[in-house]
């Protein structure tokens, strides 16, 4: 086994030092009836070349060289070369959670920068060091609101990503959180305001709205927050397409922001690993789950960083913690940090504008289902059968929505990014013409 750095001579020396005859003696104290009596039924160990070959072969069985118009929470954005250059450094890749601050300043400093940029993008006061992904950040935000308000019910818009809602339902079912949904407006595709107003009550801990929503429509967060706040509920703003924040007004009226950062340098990778984020107003800080990095000084008076406010966390508070989360998505958050640095203040805005322009180019050529303002995704009437014709031209078309929204039978959700080529968009437009 090539990852084991010992010679048999060294093993012998070590066994002698321990005072046992063989490696098997190291577990001879285990009861006989727990031991595995046969070798594991796995293929024989393989060389590096064979492993590379195996995964190339699997990769070749997937779509290769297709133009792709799928979004729905996972976006095809270009990954600057700097991203992999940075995260391939062993000092970032192979380090642990930075509990030992004196020898973890690299990771800690980067997380502090990440938290800062998350606040700048979202307009919130504080942001944590990352969550697993956008979908699991939603129930964590809901539970946070539940603790902050001492109420036990949340209302979530049907225009929030269906799989985020499913995740919330699972957590809610076992976590004592009652979940209600409110509808979207059939014309605009934005939240149906009367439907929300009719459902929000004095038991509502939070109202959860995504923007741009699952249909790509930009929501009026201020209005939704007003409705929630009038009944003493919090407003949780969810985002799945982080690039939109380059152009959209930050959700300053929200109390908690739960987002997905895949767009910032995570390859689609069949759905993960990505990174989630929670950000909030200062007054909810103590209810925030996850790790936080804070600024302080070292013994010589130099600026230094460390993990802080750990009394919210499981390793200190056990069952009284704000969440069970331990490992998060640090390296993916670092990728996002590098991505945000490369694009910067001007670049993120320009990137967002290119996404907007591409989507509006194709959106303008197709029969859109909703009239609300949209960023880089939009719903069209279909029909779904056109996808099969597109597939023959090596184009993966829009996402059929009927599986999530029976009332949208035939409708397709399309996404365009800076990587969408005009010629492919023209072929899509032609196919639906």
């Amino acid at each position: 086994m090539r990852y084991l750095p010992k010679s048999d001579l060294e093993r012998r020396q070590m066994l002698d030092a321990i005072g046992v005859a063989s490696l098997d003696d190291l577990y001879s104290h285990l009861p006989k009836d727990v031991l595995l009596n046969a070798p594991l039924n796995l293929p024989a160990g393989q060389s590096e070349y064979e492993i590379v070959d195996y995964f190339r072969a699997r990769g070749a069985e997937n779509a290769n060289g297709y133009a792709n118009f799928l979004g729905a929470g996972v976006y095809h954005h270009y990954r600057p070369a700097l991203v992999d250059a940075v995260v391939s450094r062993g000092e970032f890749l192979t380090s642990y959670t930075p509990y030992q601050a004196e020898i973890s300043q690299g990771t800690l400093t980067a997380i502090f920068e990440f938290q800062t940029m998350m606040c700048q993008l979202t307009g919130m006061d504080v942001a944590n060091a990352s969550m697993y992904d956008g979908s699991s950040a939603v129930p964590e935000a809901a539970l946070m609101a539940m603790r902050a308000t001492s109420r036990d019910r949340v209302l979530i818009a049907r225009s929030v990503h269906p799989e985020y809602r499913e995740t919330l339902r699972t957590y809610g079912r076992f976590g004592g959180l009652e979940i209600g949904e409110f509808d979207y407006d059939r014309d605009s595709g934005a939240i149906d305001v009367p439907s929300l107003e009719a459902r929000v009550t004095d038991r509502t801990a939070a109202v959860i709205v995504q923007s741009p929503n699952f249909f790509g429509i930009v929501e009026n967060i201020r209005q939704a927050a007003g409705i929630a706040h009038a009944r003493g509920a919090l407003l949780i703003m969810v985002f799945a397409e982080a690039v939109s924040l380059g152009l959209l007004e930050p959700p300053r009226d929200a109390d908690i922001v739960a987002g997905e950062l895949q767009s910032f340098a995570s390859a689609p990778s069949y759905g993960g690993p990505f990174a989630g984020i929670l950000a909030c107003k200062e007054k909810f800080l103590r209810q925030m789950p996850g790790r936080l990095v804070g600024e302080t000084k070292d013994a010589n008076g130099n600026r230094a960083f460390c993990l802080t406010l750990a009394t919210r966390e499981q390793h200190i508070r056990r069952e009284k913690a704000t969440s069970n989360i331990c490992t998060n998505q640090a390296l993916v958050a670092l990728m996002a940090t590098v991505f945000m640095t490369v694009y910067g203040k001007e670049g993120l805005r320009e990137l967002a504008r290119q996404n907007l322009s591409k989507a509006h180019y194709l959106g303008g050529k197709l029969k859109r289902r909703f009239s609300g303002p949209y960023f880089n995704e939009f719903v069209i009437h279909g029909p779904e059968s056109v996808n099969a014709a597109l597939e023959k031209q090596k184009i993966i078309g829009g996402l059929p929505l009927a599986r999530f929204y029976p009332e949208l039978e035939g409708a397709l959700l399309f996404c365009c990014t800076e990587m969408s080529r005009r010629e492919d968009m023209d072929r899509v437009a032609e196919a639906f013409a």
Partner: protein
Amino acid sequence: MIQKVRSHITQNEPLLFDLSSPGKKGYQLPELDVPDTDPAEALGASNVRREIAGFPEVSEVEAIRHFTRLSTWNYAIDLGLYPLGSCTMKYNPRVNELVARTEGLAWIHPYQPESLSQGALEIFAALETYLAEITGMDAVTLQPAAGAHGELTGIFLIRALLDARGEKRAQVLIPDSAHGTNPASVHMAGYEVVPVPSNDQGMVDTAALDRLVNEQTAAMMITNPNTLGVFEERIRRIAEMLHARGAMLYMDGANLNALAGIARPGDFGVDVMHLNLHKTFSTPHGGGGPGSGPVAVKKVLEPFLPKPRLKREGGQWRWNYDLPQSIGRVRAFYGNFGVLVRALAYILAHGGSGLKRATLDALLNANYLRKRLEPYYEIAYHAPSMHECVFSDRRQAARGVPTGAIAKRLIDYGFHPYTVSFPLIVHGALMIEPTETESKLELDLFIDAMISIAKEIEQDPELVLKAPHSTRTAKVDEVAAARKPVLKWQP
């Protein structure tokens, strides 16, 4: 004497925000091949932000230097032994990084047609099969994103099964040596935590357990080997005790690195467990993630696993959503696929006999360390060690030097510290897990460092108490950080 390291110059580096100057750029977008859309027109002026105030503006060369300089301030496995107990910081093979970046794996969308995703689905299927074989369980879900997420999923499964049986049980038993995530997960699943004491061997006190298991017990969550590195020798008896009273046995698989190839949880009575692919299966910790926390179950819990599940139909893999008893999703999509690829590459490299070899070397390294350090540090429990060993700081604390100070002094010797003050049942714990991927040379340097520190404590305790002395960042004031939190840069 400090043998492993000597000081070298490291670069200072300001924060990104202090590097910024208006108009500096590190990017260039392609020229737009479609008409430009005016944001205010398309979105409404009130929806468009003026700027991202404070956002960095730096050049490409400053960006790469920034992050490279920061990286040199970190310790890492690539630099040496990382003996954090229960964290299993082992070598991360680079071929795993390479294959995870395969174009046809990294650039596939989770909603693309299943017919165009067969290679990805085959990877899920292979990994599920292999993990079931390694654990001796019947079915596996790869959906959970990390160990604690897997714990939560596993406890949800137990609750769903009990709900389906119409049984209202309110408690989960957890040994006092358990990881903090265990009680936190149980609490999030709506259960009350009941602690189980350990006996003088560091194992579960089965007499106490016998008194605690009753018709309110939904499950017991056990870590085996436990956080002391001790195998729970009465594990079969424990499982019988629970099963006889209608409760389930959950195993925290954080320490599976001690068992792979020699014993299987499924064979010793475990009903449900999670695995940490970023521990036993060597996917990189990355400074705190991403991880992956698959959950393996016995047949009885399979109908409740998160959806979707893989199904073979007409010679093709597909995702099956028609699972009426499923607890539902615990996250969007199917799991941390890129992490799963790396873990599968690890298993393929080892094969069955290689996994066993790795386990044996992990036991060898831990027992060698224990034997060599026992004359200098007090072993917490005399029971045999598996893959990690836990000492108490009793002897050193008597001289005024607690485990936390010894840990900081290790940094001066060029090592990352062990896990400090955990498990909680040990007085000033020093929890050491070397893993199998350490050479004898590296272990001997570590042992020499620990012995040298023990001697320093006898002769000059102040030297140890004031450590670290040689780091670019001196001792960090964590108390001040928590008293008045500064959590972001401000102009």
